[in-house]
């Protein structure tokens, strides 16, 4: 026992050092490997409120771009609105039918803080649990994808940006319907370009074709614009294209976003799980 105490006294400094390192590194690596334990992030309300105070000043810097984005979004909305169409045949009347049901609910939110040039980038937005936001919901802006909700507190949420090393979003090339996964790596050194992987190299991909979401993950509505194919290169030793996609929205100037609530997501997942289990039993 006395030996133990003597040992502890001699290595006291090193033990404290070790203890602090273990706390910090466990937290960090548990995030990297299993994104479950969530310590030290900016959804904590004290830090989030400080960041939103900061945003009160910085939000004015990009107002011009933001205005244009909102105008475009409005234009799109007006086009789809029922009031912009005039009835061609007057002998028909419109009946509210039950053919269509609302699947995606858009909750507006504002980005309070974000990084764009790190290896793993996150955003803090100003809507949280009180606005019915839960982890693993998709986040979009009116121009394109933004990310996936990672953690929520009462009034704030942290969003994993699409510029994150462990994000995989299923997308497809429009018209050709070739499906692949979006992946981002910092080593490309540009927050506007993202890699599209997993498309076999016997499918010709024309440059400039649109890339849209598939909707199969249930996070994003199908056919939501992501960006345009910029370069297509073959990878040596792999039957795959290396495709670079230029994102349609510049995340660095995005401020107003929408969190997507998929009302039918649980239904889709339950069905998929059920099908999986039945397949196993056979």
């Amino acid at each position, binding site marked *: 026992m006395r030996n133990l105490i003597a040992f502890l006294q001699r290595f*006291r*400094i090193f033990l*404290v*050092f070790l203890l*602090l*390192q273990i*706390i*910090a*590194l*466990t*937290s*960090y690596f548990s*995030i*990297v490997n299993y994104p479950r334990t969530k*310590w*030290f*992030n*900016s959804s*904590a309300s004290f*830090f989030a409120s*400080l*960041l939103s105070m*900061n945003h009160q000043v*910085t939000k004015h810097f990009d107002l011009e771009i933001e205005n244009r984005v909102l105008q475009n979004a409005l234009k799109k909305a007006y086009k789809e609105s029922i009031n912009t169409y005039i009835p061609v045949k007057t002998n028909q009347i419109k009946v509210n039918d039950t053919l269509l049901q609302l699947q995606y609910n858009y909750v507006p939110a504002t980005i309070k*803080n974000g*990084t*764009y*040039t*790190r*290896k*793993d980038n*996150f955003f*803090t937005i100003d809507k949280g649990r009180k606005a019915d936001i839960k982890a693993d919901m998709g986040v979009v802006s009116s121009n394109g994808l933004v990310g996936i909700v990672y953690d929520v507190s009462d009034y704030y949420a*942290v969003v994993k940006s699409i510029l994150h090393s462990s994000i995989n979003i299923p997308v497809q090339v429009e018209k050709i319907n070739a499906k692949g996964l979006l992946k981002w790596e*910092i*080593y490309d*050194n540009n927050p506007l370009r993202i890699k599209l992987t997993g498309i076999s190299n016997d499918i010709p991909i024309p440059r400039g074709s649109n890339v849209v979401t598939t909707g199969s993950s249930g996070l994003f509505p199908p056919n939501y614009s992501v960006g345009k194919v910029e370069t297509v290169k073959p990878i040596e030793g792999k039957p795959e294209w290396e495709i670079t996609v230029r994102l349609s929205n510049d995340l*660095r100037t995005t401020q107003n976003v929408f969190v997507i609530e998929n009302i039918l997501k649980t239904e889709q997942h339950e069905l998929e799980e059920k099908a999986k289990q039945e397949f196993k039993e056979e």
Partner: protein
Amino acid sequence: MNPFIKHSVRFILFVLLQGLVFGQLEIDFGIQIMLYPLYILFLPLEMGIIWVMLLSFLMGISIDYFMNTFGLHASASVLVAYLRPELLKLFSPRDGYESYTEGNIRQMGYTWFISVFGIIVVIHHLYFFLLEHFKLTELLYIFRQTSLSALLTLTIAILSQILFFKTKKIT
């Protein structure tokens, strides 16, 4: 000023500066300015290493909250705090540190400050970026990022002291 109050105010100042100003800057080539190791160097020279480590850990965690790095800053700053006494010993002036109160540029001079804080910053940044990427195939990228960031951090540390520290006569 009471040193306890002085260092508490500095603590808050450095956290806010890192979280709200330097952390928000997005510079190309992955450059990140991390000025808070300066706070660790500025702690009283005779302060016990365990206290220095605990304070650095607290500082790192506070910055992690802002930056969503989940403990990366904490780990790097604890490492700096652990190595601080060794570094101070290595570069100790001829008559020891007894006549000095803290390691700023006005008291210790440019050569001392640049060599000590330079080593601290390089260790801190290299460790931070190595852990962040955790990928040996991208070593070249990490080295470039480290050297550019360290250079920028050191420059800002020197400039800020020229601007904000009063010249003090050493008695």
